[in-house]
């Protein structure tokens, strides 16, 4: 999974997709996730970063992570060629 080329992410949580013309607000944790994905971190690495930093258990993270991934994929912020990515 990777962030598509047309997507711009600003530090205050504003995301613009020039391919679709849509813009989005992400909350701080959403922004952090998006950036980590953009930097090429995989699931385990992102999980470790989050569990380290936040008062959070691994199952909650996993659930929220995949839900967030589905959401950004729906908005064409990421593209995912391999459906088994992140497994």
């Amino acid at each position, binding site marked *: 999974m990777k962030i598509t080329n047309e997507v711009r992410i600003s530090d205050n949580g504003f*995301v613009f997709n020039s391919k679709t013309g*849509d*813009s*989005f*607000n*992400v*909350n*701080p*944790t*959403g922004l*952090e*996730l*998006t950036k980590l994905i953009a930097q090429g971190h995989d699931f385990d690495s992102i999980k470790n970063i*989050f569990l380290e*930093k*936040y*008062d*959070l258990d691994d199952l*909650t993270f996993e659930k*929220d*992570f995949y*839900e*967030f991934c*589905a*959401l*950004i994929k*729906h*908005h064409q912020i990421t593209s995912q060629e391999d459906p088994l990515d992140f497994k």
Partner: protein
Amino acid sequence: MEKFKYVKPGMSKINAGMPSKFGLPVKQKIISGIDGIPVSALIEEYGSPLFVISEKTIRDVYGEAKRAFDTRYPKVQFAWSYKTNYLDAVCSIFHEEGSWAEVVSGFEFEKALSNGVNGSQILFNGPEKSRDDLIMAIENNACIHIDHFDELYLLIEITREIQKKARVAIRINLDAGIYPIWDRFGFNYENGEAWNAINRIMLAESLELIGLHTHIGTYIMAQAAYGIAASKLANLYMAIHRKFDYWLKYLDLGGGFASKNTLKGAYMPGSETCPSFDDYAEAISNALISSEIPHENLPVLFLETGRALIDDAGYLLTTVLANKRLNGGRRSMVIDAGVNLLFTSFWYNLGVFPTKEMDHAEETTIYGPLCMNIDVIRDAIVFPQVKTGDQLVIERVGAYNITQWMQFINYRPNVVLIDNDGKTHIIRKKESLATFKKVEFDPKRG
């Protein structure tokens, strides 16, 4: 090192400067408590889902309706429409406020009697009155609203048999500009059927005609329709006086006032578009007062208002079971209350609200917990991100849900009343296995 507080990652699309489909700003309303009691406390004590009824709201709304009519017409009498919500505790509040009872079955009739309503203050409507029901009504001196000729002749037969007089009215269907016309109930005004029925009753020694009734439909958004209906009843009232030198006691305009719920397919919320009690009262009172009826002979005006009096007082508290992204990307959630508890979700876009401030509102589908595709509480509602276990409130569910709910898959929940002093009472207990054991019999087990 202390860890940071975690907030679920979220993202919402920006629709810059776009008004919602209703042209109104989308501002998230929150219902954190009912009559001062936190939703969380109610659910903790009585479980989820949970119906909650506010006595204060019932009395406030009733007061508003009563005032609207009392200030415009000299003699007004409400009769509580039992089918709308026949929990004893609810009926009792209406009776305490002075309402008579409007019933449509032997069961509802018995319920009204058991709630202490004097038989002479029961209006017995509907096409479903058995011989036994009619005898009970006659013995109790009720006002029997005749629906069709077969019933009229059955009544004549019964009253002869038991040698007792019956007090009757007839239900009239008429063209008030409202479509469809509910012509399956009662006798038609325009084609003369109503006048024929009246003449037949006036000839029957054992029947005493005391009133005329109509119920033009439900959720009627046009108050003018009531003006038309009232004028037509007034015409019959005067015709009876002219021919028989006799004044009826009452004209009954039935129910049908819209509640503030929003009908499916409506562009504007019901709270913005439905007429007020004042609007309805003005239309009806004007029509009667400006009719040919001499002021000193004005009949009592009966009203059988149902949904508009009770919808606002009822809430359904519910809990989020799951969040899901549907294949198309649409957010959805599953809550623990299904359409089997919310019959009115088939007509209305019910208001569903979070109990606390939340963000990331997004178009969401809200499903109930039943294993059926039709179990949709809202198919598209802009709703913030919620978590499993979060509590939500569905408002304006006081009418027709607790009477038309279906037991399916799970027990029907507690219904709690918050009284005027802010105390809570279970007024209908959650079902249990024992509820079923009491009425089921297995011949194999003897």
